[in-house]
């Protein structure tokens, strides 16, 4: 085991040594105006010593398992597929000291031998590449070398790779969604999915079970998401905006310094805590209230989930809106007050129009949060896919359905699991479209100060 991490230690030590050696080399050179500080030459040496060796280490580590496996299994040419995998796993277990029966000892020894050989070879190769890299860099360290530019370029490449990783991850996620969704639509027609009014994704495990065929009409699920999001925004929008106006325009700085962090705590409470508060406190008391008022409010209702979710996302609206309103220049306020406007007139006619882009941004963030919220809805609104606009009834949302579809033991190629990907992709497209539209609206109608 030690041998597998030893090369990395060697690379680190060599890299550090290369830094000081290279720096010393350039400092010893006849001094004139150098295209870089001594430290740049040091980093240049380090880069040549570390980067190629690390790449070799990574490449070897990725490849060697497969090579060893192929060599070991080449003694068993008539095995393939799952049988080969099974055999290889038991050989590996035996090599790791877990004794199993019926393992060809020759193969176990071959495996151990090959693993040791690989580690030793990797150690030798990495050390060699590192030393070669060091000397390659060392030879090039002369006063003519534009070390500053080279090191800056290396940094640029590193930063670029970091940003690419994030983008590639997103692309990967979207692609996996698209592929699974495509497979789902081969089993269930898109027409049924997008326009079907019944959602009951229960696939029978046995042929004779009831409800043997599932129904995959996603309309009730999306309607549930819409209903709960609308309720949440009806709570969070006005309360968040008004508290932002109070904080930005009326509150004394000392009051603001206390209230703002307290409000932001709301966003930090785990959603599951909101969920059981909604399920155990709010929903029952709403049902009792409903009884008093002569209304039928089910104990799991869209209203309970939406209200609690609205409370949770207040800070997304208020905090961002408050920041944006505070950023509106004082000179605009003074201009308005100087014309005899009151505080509320100034807010309505100058501050809010100037702050609209940021406020819409806060609303979008809150909406995305509401659409993506799962836990509160599971606990407070239930799982029943009712197609209803009545907030007193139980509904379910897209994210809740995705979660329930993927929880538990299922085959990963059944309609049930693939439906989750279709829901996810649709949700992704919907939120993306929402964001794009909002961005356009903001760009078109915002009043820009400077």
């Amino acid at each position, binding site marked *: 085991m030690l041998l597998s991490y030893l090369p990395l230690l060697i690379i680190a030590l060599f890299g550090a040594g290369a830094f000081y050696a290279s720096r010393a080399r350039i400092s010893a050179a006849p001094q004139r105006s150098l295209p870089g500080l001594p430290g740049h030459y040091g980093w240049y040496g380090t880069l040549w010593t570390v980067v190629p060796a690390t790449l070799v280490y990574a490449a070897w580590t990725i490849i060697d398992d497969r090579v060893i496996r192929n060599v070991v299994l080449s003694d068993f040419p008539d095995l393939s597929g799952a049988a080969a995998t099974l055999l290889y796993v038991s050989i590996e277990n035996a090599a790791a000291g877990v004794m199993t029966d019926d393992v060809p000892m020759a193969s176990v020894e071959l495996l151990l031998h090959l693993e040791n050989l690989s580690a030793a070879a990797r150690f030798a190769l990495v050390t060699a590449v590192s030393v070669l890299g060091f000397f390659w860099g060392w030879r090039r360290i002369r006063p003519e070398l534009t070390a500053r530019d080279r090191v800056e370029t290396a940094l640029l490449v590193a930063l670029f790779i970091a940003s690419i990783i994030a983008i590639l991850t997103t692309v990967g996620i979207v692609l996996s969604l698209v592929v699974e969704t495509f497979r789902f639509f081969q089993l269930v027609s898109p027409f049924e999915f997008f326009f079907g009014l019944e959602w009951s994704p229960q696939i029978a495990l046995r042929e004779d079970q009831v409800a043997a065929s599932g129904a995959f009409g996603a309309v009730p699920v999306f309607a549930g998401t819409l209903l709960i999001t609308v309720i949440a925004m009806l709570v969070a929008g006005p309360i968040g905006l008004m508290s932002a106006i109070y904080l930005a325009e009326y509150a004394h700085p000392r009051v603001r310094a206390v209230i703002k962090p307290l409000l932001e705590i709301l966003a930090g409470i785990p959603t599951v805590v909101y969920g059981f508060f909604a399920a155990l406190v709010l929903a029952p008391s709403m049902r009792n209230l409903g009884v008093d008022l002569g209304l039928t409010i089910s104990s799991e209702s869209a209203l309970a989930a939406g209200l609690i979710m609205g409370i949770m996302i207040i800070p997304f609206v208020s905090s961002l809106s408050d920041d944006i309103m505070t950023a509106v220049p004082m000179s605009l306020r003074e201009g308005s007050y100087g014309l005899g*406007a009151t505080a509320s007139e100034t807010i309505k006619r100058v501050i809010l*129009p100037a702050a609209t882009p940021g406020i819409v941004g806060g609303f979008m963030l809150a909406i995305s949060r509401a659409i993506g919220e799962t836990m509160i809805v599971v606990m407070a609104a239930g799982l029943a896919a009712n197609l209803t606009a009545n907030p007193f009834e139980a509904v379910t949302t897209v994210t809740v359905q995705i979660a329930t579809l993927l929880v538990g033991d299922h085959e990963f190629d059944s309609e049930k699991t693939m439906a989750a990907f279709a829901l996810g992709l649709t949700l992704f497209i919907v939120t993306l479209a929402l964001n794009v539209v909002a961005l356009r609206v903001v760009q078109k109608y915002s009043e*820009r100060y400077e």
Partner: protein
Amino acid sequence: MVNVSALSDPQPKLVARAVSVYYGGKQALFDIDLDIMSREVTAFIGPSGCGKSTFLRCFNRMNDLIDDCRSTGSMLLDGSDIAGPDVDVVQLRMRIGMVFQKPNPFPKSVYDNVAYGPRLHGMAPTRGDLDEIVETSLRRAGIWDEVKDRVDQPGTSLSGGQQQRLCIARAIAVRPDVLLMDEPCSALDPIATATIEELIDELKSEYTIIIVTHNMQQAARVSQKTAFLNLGRLIEFDETQKIFTNPSEPSTQDYITGRFG
């Protein structure tokens, strides 16, 4: 030595008596007495931090916007109080308009900028009335010919000098008696400054103007009376010509000749 009585007309437009202003525990203005005459330009000069802007902002109560700022003494506009707690600040600011150091048009169209005050105060019952107010104000601010074809464009798209004249038009659209100008040319180039100075000269036939300026030539060019403030005190207040040719106080002399400030 502040010679107030020698300057006092029977009907001063604005009167300040024993005005002191404090920011928290720090006193910024000390017992200032001053009379501002109607339809004249009065300039406040003095080194940075001497309190001239603070004093200017007392006239339309803009210091109310600053949390820990309080003032004592009495101030009168046409004989009625403007400093007391019962004064209607909205009415006061309609009568005393203000132009700021940096042009601060609202991020709205030229038209909406000028129409802002009249709309607030319900001064124009019909669209036609509003159009008339906007046009008259822009004309009076000497910018109508430049913007008449683009009153729908954002005010922020104008040049700095045009923006400042737009702000002047915005201020006079609510028909004030007094215009307070807080270094109105300090963010402008010399040509735009000359235009604003000409405008100030024209406006004084209808408005009482107080201008704070760092530029002594500007004070000499546009004002009839000049007040010199230093370290929160009014040092000297007199005819502009006298201040700049034969000041009574040695420190005024020093400031004008550039020995400090």
